[in-house]
């Protein structure tokens, strides 16, 4: 095979894996933003906390990497419910600015807290052997870790779509996103639906943060560093809670970021920011958003 084709396949593989990871991490933000118009900028803090849960369990309790993932999910979901009940719930009717400030405050506290507990240095984990090898299929070789990202990402994405499109609870979520007041009117307990959605979305962020430690890195600046990525996914995907839009945006972002790093490494994140700006100018409600 000519090297250029191998390169393209490589970029596609890594890009889609990264995009899936981004989607899993940011889908919760997209839905909660659509349902409550609540701009939770601290979404990345949940992802970071998920990552630290995994590193702590592996280091101090000797757990295996895969076994820690469900724990990260459950723990972050639980933490987020507490935060939602104590802090966020008061802010749903507040101005956007107040929501931004509150969640920025939480980001700052989580950054300093993480630096206090786990130290400021980047965390590295030793993945099990079966996740560090490269497999070769025909002429194409890929890392098993990338394959794991792709597999978990695909399964979760399918599960999310099934849950939203085919279950009763998913229908309630969609109704609440479409029109909160009408949903309330037909007897849906929007607050309860929201709390559960928020918990699952945050848990997914935590799971993504844990799963992606070796792809995204993990240090106290994580919530700020990846905030832009989440915001891009949400904004390009549409700020009205379009899950399909978020998926498309995440894949687009994953592919363009990977391709950028592969082919023109010197431009850094520049291209992504410019693309985001252009999209926001062209369609302020997002590429796939409803006006």
């Amino acid at each position, binding site marked *: 095979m000519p090297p250029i084709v191998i390169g393209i396949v490589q970029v596609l593989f890594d890009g889609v894996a990264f995009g899936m990871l981004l989607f899993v991490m940011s889908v919760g933000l997209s839905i909660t933003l659509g349902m409550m118009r609540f701009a939770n900028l601290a979404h990345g803090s949940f992802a970071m906390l998920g990552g630290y849960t995994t590193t702590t369990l592996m280091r101090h309790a000797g757990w295996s990497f895969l076994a820690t993932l469900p724990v990260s999910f459950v723990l972050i979901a639980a933490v987020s419910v507490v935060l939602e009940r104590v802090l966020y719930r008061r802010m749903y009717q507040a101005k956007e600015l107040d929501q931004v400030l509150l969640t920025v*405050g939480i980001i700052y*506290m989580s950054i300093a807290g993480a630096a*206090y507990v786990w130290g400021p240095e980047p965390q590295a984990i030793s993945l099990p052997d079966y996740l560090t090898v490269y497999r070769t299929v025909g002429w194409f070789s890929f890392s098993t870790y990338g394959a794991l990202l792709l597999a978990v990402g695909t399964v979760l994405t399918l599960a999310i779509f099934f849950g939203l499109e085919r279950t009763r609870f998913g229908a309630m979520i969609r109704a609440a996103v479409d029109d909160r007041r009408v949903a309330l009117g037909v007897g849906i307990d929007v607050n309860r639906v929201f709390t559960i959605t928020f918990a699952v979305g945050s848990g997914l962020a935590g799971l993504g943060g844990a799963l992606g430690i070796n792809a995204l890195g993990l240090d106290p600046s994580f919530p700020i560093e990846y905030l832009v990525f989440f915001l891009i996914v949400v904004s390009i995907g549409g700020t009205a809670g379009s899950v399909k839009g978020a998926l498309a945006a995440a894949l687009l972002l994953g592919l363009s970021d990977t391709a950028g790093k592969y082919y023109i490494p010197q431009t850094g994140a520049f291209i992504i920011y410019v693309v985001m700006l252009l999209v926001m100018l062209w369609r302020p409600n997002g590429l796939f958003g409803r006006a």
Partner: protein
Amino acid sequence: MTAAEPARDSAPAPSAVADFRAQARWQWYEPLFWLGAIAWYFLLPTYLPLGTQILATALFALSLDLILGYGGIVSLGHTTFFGVGAYTAGLLARYGWQEPISCLVAAGLLAAFAGWICSFVIVRVQGIALLLVTLGINLVLYEAANKAYKITGGADGLQGIEFSPLLGMFHFDMLGRTAYLYTLIVVFLVFLVARRIVYSPFGLALRGMRENWKRMPALGAGLRRHGALIFVLSAAIAGIAGALLAESVQFVALDSLAVQRSVDVLTMLIVGGTGVLYGSFVGAVVYMVARDQLADLNPAYWYFWIGLMLVLVVLFTRNGVVGALADSAAWVQRKRGRGPAP
């Protein structure tokens, strides 16, 4: 304002104008505030560099207050214009134009120009899209300055820049005396301009915009035109603040374009109070002094306290420190008005 309200109801037109004039009148605490800034010079000679930074930062916060507190435009990327101003002054000095006052003017003009370009976009988006656009502009500029290290020095910043003595007479001394007084004078002059803007009919239209975005066009006010104008003015002031800081510390850090600084200045303004002019000064003093003290104790955890401050301000005060002060003053007055009832 509350005291004048009954009068306004009985005879609308003349007393509304009088009411408006009364708002613009200087309050008793305003000269006190500026006298305090002068007193700093004599009483805290070892803290002059900190004082200079506080003043320049307060001016930056004031520029944000103009668009946020008065125009209702939320920006997550206002340091874009601060950075443009700082780099304008720094680059001019580096390439041989070292006269500080003209550098300041050039920085203000260039920042205004940048603001004018951005304003076309800003006035067309609202809500979360507005946050993203301002953040995006900030990020793009930061990356550009970071990559263009041949011009900007990249992550090392613009080092070794020097400015000629002020008016050909006053050297920027090591103790920062000239820098402090120079900054204080410029900040005061720009403050006067901002004060004039806020209490002008244009300022009233801005407040109308902030209060009710939909009703203002019905009164015949051009939202986009007003929004663009205040955005350009605000950008110019931010640019001047950036240039002031560059001139007083003789250095431009890449940090002056970092999104972190945009968030910091927003934090200061919120802690101080929006839409009251002095909120930006109070916020800058509280924030910078707290950082000066807390960072000594434990630099890495400074942001924990800032975060906590933000959360508490959002949850428990109506409008930052100034709002809390006004509320407690009103509370005391109410108590006194009711007389000595048990």
